[in-house]
């Protein structure tokens, strides 16, 4: 964890930092399923988070309905609706759920978006072929996780 704190100081000191070292997927510290520090060392961008909810490797609305994104078609019903999710969970808990929901909900169907190990017959994205690269990439980058979390934090009803 030391280097994370170090990065935090660097951000504070330099003011306009463009790059900070991310916590590696294998180094994330979960406490009761929650993750207290930013994985990228940077704040998230809720607007980009909203984009990721609908696209790319996020595609959260494949399984979750979100009223705030009702302009987008086809919200799924596999997971609970995410309206008011920030009333139910803290930012740290939301970060933990998005990074690796299996830590919070044992055996859940929700994919682990910031994990790189422990897969059975890992493929090369959606080609159906075996993964052959050197390093497995998580479904979302550290910054993308932060962006999604920043969006989820805005989902308040109370």
């Amino acid at each position: 964890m030391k280097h994370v704190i170090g990065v935090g100081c660097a951000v504070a000191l330099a003011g306009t930092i463009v790059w900070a070292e991310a916590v590696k997927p294998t180094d994330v510290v979960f406490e009761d399923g929650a993750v207290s520090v930013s994985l990228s060392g940077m704040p998230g961008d809720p607007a980009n988070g909203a984009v990721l909810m609908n696209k790319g490797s996020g595609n959260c609305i494949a399984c979750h309905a979100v009223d705030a994104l009702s302009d987008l078609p086809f919200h799924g019903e596999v997971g609970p609706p995410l309206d008011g999710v920030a009333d139910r969970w803290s930012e740290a808990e939301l970060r933990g759920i998005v990074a690796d929901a299996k830590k919070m909900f044992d055996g859940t169907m929700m994919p682990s978006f910031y994990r790189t190990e422990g897969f059975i017959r890992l493929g090369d994205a959606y080609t159906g072929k075996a993964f052959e690269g050197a390093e497995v990439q998580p479904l979302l980058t550290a910054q993308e996780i932060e962006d999604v979390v920043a969006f989820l934090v805005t989902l308040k009803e109370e």
Partner: protein
Amino acid sequence: MNLKPWMAAAVIGLAGSAFAQDDSTLSIDGEEFVTETEAPAHLENVSTIYSGWRFRTPETQALQVDDFDNPAMIFVDQALDLFQQVDGTEGKSCASCHTDGPEEFAGLHAKMPKVVDGKLMVMEELINTHRQDAMGAEPWKWSGADMQAMVALIGLQSRGMPMNVAIDGDAAPFWEKGKEIYYTRYGQLELSCSNCHEDNYGNMIRADHLSQGMINGFPTYRLKQAKLISRHNRFRGCIRDTRAETFAEGSDEFKALELYVASRANGLDIETPAVRQ
């Protein structure tokens, strides 16, 4: 069915009735089909099984109720021609041996896959074995148009009969293997067949209305692809969507999975060839 807390309201609202899919009945040319029945005894987590037809839109459903509207029938007609067509070194067609025509195969589909001399056989292999051994002809490609047309023609002879594959005796070890595959969470998304088709049938996943993933209507005509889709091609697509390395069409794994998935439909009427979006 695994009920989740946020579904409870919906279930209470419709207590007693099927809530997961529509309640229409399928009849083709006046003949009624069983599209919903008690699950076979071996199914642990599901009490009622449903045909995939029940989960489709009225527009797609309608294409299956009249054979003149069913686009798969063009391929069935082509297979009737293939049945008569001489091919291979022996100068024979299917009809040379099967003199009563494809009708001879009534009931066969209901019992496939089955174990023959210790080997698990699926329809595609039965067809290719006869092409090679009896006709001296080249084997057809698994998901090729000729093969799937012939699988559909033979399947059609059992339409309206209940699926009834054997899972005991010689079949047991293959069935166990298929079951294990069905419940394995593959790929980077770590999803098993059961996650989608057992825990979530009736729910939307993005734009798709999840069915129980039954194969009693295969090969199915898929409107999107405008052709007949084989069972193994469908399995491949579903596993690929979990960001996994799939198994090959015709592999031992997919044959075992086919036996297991077929057994989950035991009791549902065969609808081959069905129509899907």
